[in-house]
Structure formats: structure tokens, C-alpha cells
């Protein structure tokens, strides 16, 4: 009888371990779902392009507010980059089927995505690095906790 009760205790402990394990797993799953939901901004997901300096430090953010934006030297377009290695209208970014795409518009110096030349339209992921001419841009998810970098730092180059 005593052996049987010991056995019963072991079996209950065994079941408890199994289900505690499962409970902890499910708690983890739940937290991951919650965390993913929290990271997703309310409403539409906003992306921005961050211009980076050669050393990788951020220089300026361009919010992608329209569903189609152009990158180029032209001052009248959304992502206007004053640099002679950038063509006037260099590349296009647009949203289609919930994804952002990138396309090179026959620019003179070409567009690189993560150091690979962009020859046809390509899906962008958060964290992708786009190089237009010699300007480096990072495609990133807009972080609501940090204000976008707005001001243009003092430029030494005289405007043309």
C-alpha cells in the first residue's frame, strides 16, 4: 500500500511536471504574441528612410507617408538627396499588397540593396540598407518612442 501511494505521488508529480512545462510554454507563446502586437504600431505600419553617414550614425529621417515615393536629387520629391552621385530621379519606393518595393529608375550610378545591385523590383524588409550613388539609406520601421531626426545638420557644401 505504501509503495502504491509513493507510486501515485510520483505519477502525480510526473503529470504536474508535464503540465507545468506546457503551461510555461504557453505563457511564453502568449507573451511573444503580446510583444509582437505591442511592437506593431496602431493603424497602418509606418516606415521611414534614414540617411546614414559613412560611419553609420543617423543623419536624417524621411517618413514614407505616401504609398509611392521617389528618391533623387530633385528638391521636389519625397526623398530629396542633394548629392551629385544621385540621379535627379534615382529610384522609386512603393507599397503594394502590404509590402514595400524598391526599383531602380535607370540611375547613372545605380542602386544597391544590401550591397547587391537592384536590377528588378525587390521587396524591402526592415533593416535593409539602400545605397543610392554614395548616399546610404536604411529602410526602417518608424519607432514611435523616438522622435524622427528632423533638422539638417550644417552643410559645408554651398548650394548650387
Amino acid at each position, binding site marked *: *500500500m505504501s*509503495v*502504491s*501511494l*509513493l*507510486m*501515485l505521488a*510520483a*505519477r502525480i*508529480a*510526473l*503529470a504536474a*511536471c*508535464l*503540465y*507545468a*512545462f*506546457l503551461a*510555461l*510554454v504557453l505563457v*511564453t*507563446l502568449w*507573451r*511573444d504574441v503580446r*510583444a*509582437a502586437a505591442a*511592437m*506593431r504600431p496602431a493603424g497602418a*505600419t509606418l516606415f521611414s528612410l534614414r540617411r546614414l553617414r559613412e560611419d553609420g550614425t543617423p543623419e536624417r529621417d524621411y517618413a514614407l507617408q505616401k504609398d509611392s515615393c521617389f528618391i533623387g536629387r530633385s528638391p521636389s520629391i519625397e526623398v530629396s538627396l542633394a548629392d551629385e552621385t544621385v540621379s535627379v530621379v534615382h529610384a522609386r519606393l512603393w507599397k503594394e499588397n*502590404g*509590402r514595400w*518595393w524598391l526599383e531602380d529608375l535607370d540611375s547613372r550610378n545605380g542602386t544597391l*540593396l*544590401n550591397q*547587391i545591385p537592384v536590377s*528588378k*523590383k*525587390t*521587396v524591402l*524588409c*526592415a*533593416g535593409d540598407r539602400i545605397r543610392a550613388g554614395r548616399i546610404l539609406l536604411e529602410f526602417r*520601421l518608424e519607432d514611435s518612442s523616438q522622435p524622427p531626426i528632423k533638422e539638417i545638420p550644417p552643410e559645408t557644401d554651398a548650394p548650387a
Partner: protein
Amino acid sequence: MTSPSRREAALLGLALLFQIFGAAALLLSPSVQAGAWTVNPPYWSALFAMGVWGLVAWILHRTLDRILPNRDPLLLPAALFLCGWGLQILVRLSPETALRQTLWLFLVGGLLMVFLRLPHDLEWLRKYRYLWLGAALAAVAATLFFGVGAGEDSPRLWLGLDGIYFQPSEFLRWIFPVFAAFTLAPRRNTGNGPEPKDAFPVLLFGAAGVLLHILQQDLGAAMLLIAASVLALYLAYRKTGILLFGAAAALAILGGGYALSATIRDRIATWWNPWLDPSNTSYQVVQSLISVAAGGLIGRGPGLGAPGLVPVAYSDFIFSALSEEYGVLGAVGCLTVMAVLVLRGMRIAIRSTDPAARLIAACLSALLGCQSILIIGGGLRLLPLTGVTLPWMSYGGSSLLGSMIMLGFLLILSNRAPAAAADVRPDRPVRVLSVIFLLAFAAAGVSAGWWGIYRAPVLRVRTDNYRRVLHDRRARRGDLFDRNGLPLAVTAGVAGAYTREYPGPASAPVVGFTTAFYGQGGMEAALDPWLRGEAGRNSFDLWWSETVLGIPLEGKDAWLTIDRSLQERGSAGMGDLAGAVVVLRAGSGEILALISQPTFDPATLQTDYELLSRNPAAPLLNRATQGLYGPGRMLYPFFAAEAKNWNLPDSGSDLCAVPYTEWILENPEFAQQVLAQFRFDQDPAMDLPTANVAALVFPADETSILREWDGQGRVLVSPIQLALAFASIAAGGMAPAPRLIYRLEAETGWTTPATASHPVAMVTAVTAARLREILGGGGDTAEWTGCGGNGASAGGISWYAGFETAGDDPIVVVVALEGSPSDAAGIGRMILAFAAAMDK
């Protein structure tokens, strides 16, 4: 939020506790079965397995902390949980196998560490993918020439090297999907998906692999490879049609296999209806289902079931073994762990930015899911049986290595997935697959519940459930004694090796038999719940001790009303003659003897059964209760007794001089009324099976009536019916309810159960007294003899009926001897005198 590393450590801690308690339960189990402290030395290997498991878990956790800090914290604990559980079950099924698997775990743990230290960009795999795939295919092909199999006719799937065997198909299992992923995924995410031409190498090498597996007769591996090709193409091209096409192709291949291969035909036929051939082709499936049913909701407990009865339980049917010992609750828990692993793999795919990573993660986790569902579903009759291993749990070194490498891929890729990048890209194929696998695992859980709970009562009592035999060897069955306490059937031996002995073979027609494969008969069958110790206990008590604590029930003894010496004396008196004797007490209905010849020896029934059941003399038939004979003249006293009620002339004291035939011709209902009055038209309900009395119609024409008096007519009665009718005369008009159970052992002393029927008033006390007078001439004993027939068949019957009213409770004897002329009266008188002498 808890850091992933600490979450992983907590989960591994719980898994270790599960290992510890599992090993403890396993070590306790022999003591529970024996009821005293005993040790089964091979079970000590559970501790070794637990130690190695703990070491591997600890080292892997520490290594992962260093090299993959951002990994998914659920993957390693879930896989190791399954692995440890598998080891526990292996220790229980075959300690030697478990020992080898433990060593494999140690080795595989080391190989996984090596794998995890290879460059995480997986370039070494991508660049040389044709080389890797070619090597794996070549190794599989090599088994066709140099392979060794488990047996003479079994598929030769292993390559042997100095005693170490490995199964190349287990490498192809993960190399092929990785190859397909790298081939189908563009190096950079162009968003366009792969070109149609990219599918060509996948289809080509996939087909080559499938062909090799078919040549090897490895149906399971072929199915998995087909699944891998279809899954990779579906995930890469994102076209639902591919999945549907794959399902259709799988069905077509099954159909083709059904037409061409006997093995596949058997597998499908046994899946569709396993009950047709449960001892041959569907033996495995039926035994597996019985095993699940034996477990029930909470299981028998580790070490307390009999999962070894299922063939290859350590590999194909390890899930049935798990269900038997850990119950449906354990099975559902196990399925949940597997589902979590698959879904977490899918999550890695969704979060991947690299198309190749996405393909590898989704494809490998889907394949692990496929493999689990295939083999679990096969054992639960959800799917036809395919011989694949259950990932992490089944025995097999190469299988464990393959599963662990797949885990390694998932770990590396989960580490790579950028934690901050919330998924924004809808990935329909991965979501569709996640839902499919969730549903499949849920279906497996429901199926386990179906067989383990809902259908369990039917499956458990099947005669091919050999657990009953094992149970009877462990649980002491109660003894049967005669009314004086002389043993009739006793359990001998020690716990674990109990046998049944029958010291009084002359009592076999009453005592019956209990056998492993031919069921039970006689009082052994009627009193089974008592002898097993189940009756007389409340159901909670039963559930608690049998199901929860796993203590074999202590059987309870029973005393029968028969007298062993009277049985022996009567049987000896009959010599070699066939026939039946009933001796009963007219007042209480207690049956003192019930002899039927020829009979059987219950001790050797297990070996003789086939012969006995084919014997034309029907030794297994109890002639006293089931034998039907033409009564002939034996009915005269009853017709005479009833005459008065029909205003028929009193014919005096010579029963033979009565014009019965005229009476019946004049009053057609008279005979029918008499038969009903003395209950010759009913089965006497008692604890032994009685003859099924067909509609009894006494004829109304003269020729037929005359035939009836010769005993050659249509009316047939059993000796027990005649004995009860004569008892009514001896006991003043009341026929007793026949009683065979003298007393039963109960929780609170002894009890006497109610009889199956009630006493019946057959004639008035005055009529009974008059008849007794006529039959006995005024003395203490009375008798009536006659000749009857054996129905329409040849050979007559010699009848004797007599009673003795000197004691408190009159004794009635009825003898029916087949093959007249024989001296029924002599034997009857001898038995009556012997029985009456015992009263004094």
C-alpha cells in the same frame, strides 16, 4: 520580461524534474506489482539515461547561451523533453535498447554542438548543396547493394560499419529540404519568388530519392520525401494549387501502391477495417489500439502497463506505449509539445527576412510535423501505417541525429531572425501549414481520446488483449469450494506466476473453467466478478486501487452448494455411461450435485480445447442443464396430478393405467396446460447456462401422442427441469429456485446472493401429498422411472426420478442415461441413498 536564456533554463529544469519523477516511478513499479519492495535491476538504467540526458541538456543550454543568444527558448526544451520521455519508455520496454539510445543521445549531443559551431550563414551548405545531396543519395543507393536489414525479409535500410549501423535515409530526410530551400530561394529577396526553372532540380532529385526509397521498400521515407518536395515548392511558389496537387499525387501513389504492392494493400486494408484480420495483417494496429485502450485517461503508470505486447513498440508504436502508461492525458501533453515545436518553427519562417531561411525553417518544421502525424496517426488508425520513426522519441541513432540536426537549423535560424522587426509581410503558405498541423495534432489528440476512453471498454475485453492473462498471473483469483469447504478450483503459485488448479475434476460441469484464450465457462464464468474481487466493492474503490494505485485486486472465495464427494460418487456410479444427474434439495433449491458425462478436465482444457469442442459426444455441454431429452413416461405423474382440475375421472393409484391419450384427445389444451403448469415450457433461470427451450407444443393426434409416451416425440425437457418439477411434489407443491452458490466472501463476512429466479407454486399441497403417496407408497422415499428418447435421434434415454423426504429438506434425484437399456434406477437409488445418508 524573462530573458530567453532563463526561460529556457526554467523549462529544462521542469523537463529534468519530469525525468526524475519518471525514473522514480519506473523504479517503484516492480514493488507496486509485487506488493512488496522489489527491484528490477535493468530499470536502474533509467538513472543512467536521466544522468546523460541532464548532462546533454546542461551542455547544450550553456553552449547555446554563448553562440546563439537570441535563439527561440522553447525549441531546445521541447525537443529534449520528447527525447527524455522517449528514453523513459525505452527503458521500460527494453533496457538494453535504452542503454544504446542513451549512448546515441550523448554522441548526437556532441555532433549537434559541432553543427552549431559551423558558420551560421549556412554558406557551406548552400555552396556545396549538390555535393551534400549527391552524397546522401549515394549513401541511400549504397544500401541497395551493401545494406543490412533487421531480419531476413525486412527492408535493408542500414549501412553497417564495424557494428555501428546508420540509416542513410535519415540524412536525406533533412539534406533534401535544405537543398530544395537553397535551390528555390533567390540569393536576394527580389520579391518575385523563384523562377519556374528552379523547380527542376528539386523535382529531379526528389524523384530520384523517392525512387530509391521505393526500391528499398521504405514506404515511410518515400512519403516523407514526397512531402518535402511538395512543401518546399508550395512554400517557395506560394501557390495553393501545389499543395492540392501534392495531396492528389500522394493519393494517386497510394492508389498505385494498392494495385501493385501487397504490403501497401495490407496497410490500407488494415487501416480501413482492422477488425477483419486482427490476428494476422492488422495484428499491429489492433494491438496498438488495445494498448491505448488499456491506458485509459490516466494511464497504467510507468512500468505498470504491458506496452511490450505491441510489436516494435520501441520504434513504430512508441506513442501507443506512451498512451498505455501515461494515459490520454500524457498523450495529449506529448502532442502539445510536438505541436508547439512545429508552430515555433513556422514562426521562425514568418520572422525570417532571408528567403532561404524562411524556406528551411518552414520546410523542416513541417516535415517534423508530417513525420510525427504519420506515425502517431498510423498507430491510432487515423492514417494507414507507414514505418517512420517518431522524431526524438523512437529508438534509432540516425533518426535521433536527423531530428537533432533539424533542431539545430531551427535554433540557428531563430537566432538570426531580427527580434525588433515585427512581421509585416503576410506569409499565407506558412500560416496555412500552421493551421493544417494544428488541426492534425488536434485530430490525433481526439483520436487518442476516442480509443483510450470512448472505445476502451470494448477493446479491453477483447480476447486478443493478453493483458488479461498477465493480470491473472499477478492477481490472485478467488478459490471455489464445495459446501463442505473442499476445494474445487484454487489459485496456486506465487504472485506473478499464479496458476489455476482443479482438485475435483468430477465437478467440472459445475465449476467450469477459466482460460486465457478460450474464455470461461461454468461457475468460473458466473462468479467471475467475485473471484476477481470486483463485485461487492464500490466503483470508486475499484478505480482507486486498480487504476490509480495499480494494485492487483485480491480475489474473493466462493462456496458452491454442490458436494464434491457426491459428485465423485455419482460420477463413479455412472461409469462410462453418458448422461446427467441432478441432485437438489426440494425446499431450498440447493443443488447438491450436477453430473454430466462425458465431461472435460478443466486443468488441461487450455491444450485440449480444440479437440473437445470438435468431439461429437459434446463433453463441453452440461447435459444436466443444457441437455434436452424426450421425457416419455416421466410426464405421467404430472398429468395425473392435474386430472382433477379438469374434472377427469380419478384413475386410482396405478399411474400407468390412466387413459392419458384419450384425455388429451378429448381436451386438446390439457397437455399444454400441464406442461406450462410444471414450467417445462420455460428455461429454469439459474447461474449456469440452461437449454433454450423452443416453443413446446404437445401433439393432439393419437399417433403423435403415442410417440410422445415412448419419448420419441417433439417434447423435450432437461434433467434440471424434471428435477424441479419432482421437487414440487416432494416439497408440498412449491418448486424451489435452483441455487448453486452457497456463500460468497464479502467485505463484511459472508453473503448469500439472491437466486436468479423465484420459487414457483406448481400444484396444491393436497395434490402434491396425494402424488407423493402414489409414487412412494407411504414411505420416506418415492420414485418413478421411465424410458425416453433422445429426440428424433437414435438411442433411447433411461430416466429415474426419486426423492427422499425423511430429512428437514427433501432430496430429489433425477438421472438421465443415454443409450437405453441402462440401469438409471440403480444409479439413482444409490445416489439418493448416499445423499440421504450425508444428511444424518
